[in-house]
């Protein structure tokens, strides 16, 4: 890992432009006419545009855009800060920018010039056309749905052999709502367009003006099976602003919960994948392990989803030694059983037949679409926030990323299996060397802003908080699913429609975590 200023990037971004540095980011103020040029040069550094955050400018009229870049081999994210009201779209250079820009256009009413896609993203037909909820002068209140809705236009395809299959928002299974529009030729998928936003609950606006403590609850409710990851990410950002250092035991307990959440979450993915190829015997055995872990979660924190345990300054309560010893026993059982089921599943030819070469995410897609998590790692890229931008306990005890090269469903299945084994072994290690002491520390209110990054079970989670007068002025959270949904649109091409559920399940992306 290189220091930023010895990095050749120093030539591109002179140090006098630097306006701030926190745990995970270095920010530079750039002028509006330079942004495209700088973004273009950054492409040469194997960079990914992982997020664009918008805030209202503090003193003058207008908006501030925060472009968050991740550069290969650099521990900190590079943030380019731009004050502007009529920005230029970066979608042609960084395709991932398109959906971030659409979200900003919805929220703040800013139009990006040269943008490739001007359709609304999370605001559906019921919202009036000039409605922009994230503006500061808009006070959160129930709205009257628009009586003349502007219909959303799907990409159109024409041809005598083509037909369309619309699916959702209410699906056949017990899953979240989203709309999938397939264009099919014969049996194989020619195009897939995913429309989300059905679960838009206005979380970012809701957090405005809340106390920093209430923010934890809001972050937890973004997505139920990533609640600890989101709560930790938010807490880390706030603690960075407050310059609050949490006690070592709290650090261990948070890592314990993060890895426990990853394990049970990924176990449901494995169960889902084998269910979709009609191998329900293995699915049942995976689900037994998942339930065992969820019961352990309840034993540790009182919640099967580990909700309400993370707090600003530490965790809510200590976990006694005898319960931690139980964790050790549970893990030994789960690890042993898991290895058996994995070996068994991978010895069944019909499973391999369905998994192998299905739903391939090619490695060259990873950077342009800013993919992360198991999807990127199964396509041969060792991207893992825990290793690339270490936080919490991972600074002291690094964890090794697992990778697979194939990028297909089989790759993701094997990878997720191995990640659970790695996570559980990590937990097993850390419960034996957990230090004593307090689990919470007091903190002083302070204003400022900060970023934080966490690896959730689905990948890179970023959080931005800005605190003014002790309460939240801006809370923004970007989950891995937001970018990873684009991987699904590409992975299904050329596959047959009946393989779609399997490919979807192999990624298991969050709808709620995308819509906020």
């Amino acid at each position, binding site marked *: 890992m290189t220091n930023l200023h010895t990095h050749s990037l120093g030539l591109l971004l002179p140090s006098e432009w630097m306006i701030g540095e926190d745990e995970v980011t270095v920010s530079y103020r750039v002028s509006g006419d330079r942004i495209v040029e700088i973004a273009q040069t950054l492409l040469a550094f194997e960079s990914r545009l992982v997020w664009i955050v918008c805030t209202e400018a503090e003193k003058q009229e207008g908006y501030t855009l925060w472009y968050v870049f991740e550069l290969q081999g650099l521990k900190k994210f590079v943030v380019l800060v731009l004050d502007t009201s009529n920005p230029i779209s970066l979608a042609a250079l960084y395709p991932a920018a398109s959906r971030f820009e659409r979200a900003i256009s919805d929220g703040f009413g800013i139009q990006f010039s040269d943008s490739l896609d001007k359709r609304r993203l999370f605001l559906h037909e019921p919202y009036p056309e000039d409605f922009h909820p994230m503006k500061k002068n808009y006070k959160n209140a129930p709205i009257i749905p628009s009586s003349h809705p502007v219909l959303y236009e799907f990409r159109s395809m024409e041809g005598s052999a083509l037909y369309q299959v619309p699916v959702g928002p*209410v699906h056949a299974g*017990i899953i979240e709502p989203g709309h999938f529009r397939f264009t099919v030729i014969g049996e194989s998928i020619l195009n897939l367009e995913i429309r989300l936003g*059905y679960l838009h*609950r206005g979380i970012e606006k809701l957090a405005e003006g809340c106390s920093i403590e209430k923010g934890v609850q809001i972050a937890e409710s973004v997505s139920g099976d990533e609640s600890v990851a989101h709560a930790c990410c938010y807490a880390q950002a706030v603690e960075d602003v407050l310059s609050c250092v949490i006690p070592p035991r709290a650090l261990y307990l948070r890592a314990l919960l993060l890895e426990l959440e990853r394990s049970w979450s990924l176990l449901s993915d494995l169960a889902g994948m084998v269910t979709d190829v009609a191998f329900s015997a293995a699915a*049942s055995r995976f689900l*037994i392990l998942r339930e065992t872990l969820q019961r352990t979660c309840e034993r540790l924190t009182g919640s099967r989803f580990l909700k309400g345990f993370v707090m600003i300054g530490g965790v809510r309560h200590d976990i006694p030694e005898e319960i931690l010893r139980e964790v050790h026993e549970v893990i030994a059982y789960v690890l042993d059983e898991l290895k058996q089921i994995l070996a068994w599943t991978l010895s069944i030819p019909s499973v391999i037949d369905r998994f192998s070469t299905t739903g391939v995410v090619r490695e060259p897609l990873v950077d342009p679409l800013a993919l992360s998590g198991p999807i990127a790692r199964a396509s041969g890229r060792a991207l893992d926030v825990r290793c690339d931008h270490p936080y919490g306990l991972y600074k002291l005890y690094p964890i090794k990323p697992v990778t697979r090269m194939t990028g297909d469903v089989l790759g993701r299945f094997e990878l997720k299996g191995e990640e659970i084994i790695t996570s559980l072994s990590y937990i097993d290690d850390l419960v034996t060397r957990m230090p004593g002491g307090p689990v919470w520390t007091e903190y002083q209110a302070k204003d400022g802003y900060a970023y934080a990054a966490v690896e959730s079970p689905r990948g890179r989670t970023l959080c931005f908080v800005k605190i003014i007068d002790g309460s939240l002025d801006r809370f923004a959270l970007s989950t891995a699913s937001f970018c990873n949904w684009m991987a699904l649109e590409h992975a299904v091409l050329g596959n047959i429609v009946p393989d779609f559920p399997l490919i979807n399940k192999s990624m298991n992306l969050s709808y*709620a975590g995308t819509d906020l």
Partner: protein
Amino acid sequence: MNMNILSLFLKKPQVLQVYNPDPAFESAGLLLKKEIKWVFGKSIAIREVDCGSDNAAEIELANLSAPHYDVERFGITFVASPRHADVLAVTGVVTHAMKEALLKTYEATPDPKFVIAIGDDACTGGIYQGSYAVVGPVDAVIPVDLKIPGNPPTPVAILEGLLGLMRSAKKG
């Protein structure tokens, strides 16, 4: 008894670790089985609709079919279409974008039908009260017969809720 002599040479089937069933869940399940028989004849079919949940309630509902709970033995099935359903299980606060889909699902469900709201957000609106993006709790859009609070409710709580629903249906 007919038995293939050769089977003696087969390996004994592996015995998986046995787990203890949850007594509260088992007793609620058995009572529910009787009530379902009384009200619906044999079984009830549930269709789940997510209108703004964070996915935790969906995970618990899906859990009901997993081996530790396996509610099909009590006569409860989850179906793919509202046209096959007796009960709609609605989770989450109703967002503006999902209101129409919820109404259509409700209309597609044949009478007699019951609606249960699952989770705090579905019951009261929870932390989303007053947000621009929500219409309100489920009963702001369609009539609700039963509310099961929780964040999310546990499988036992969901089953006990269903028991309450069958009992009130019997009286009504």
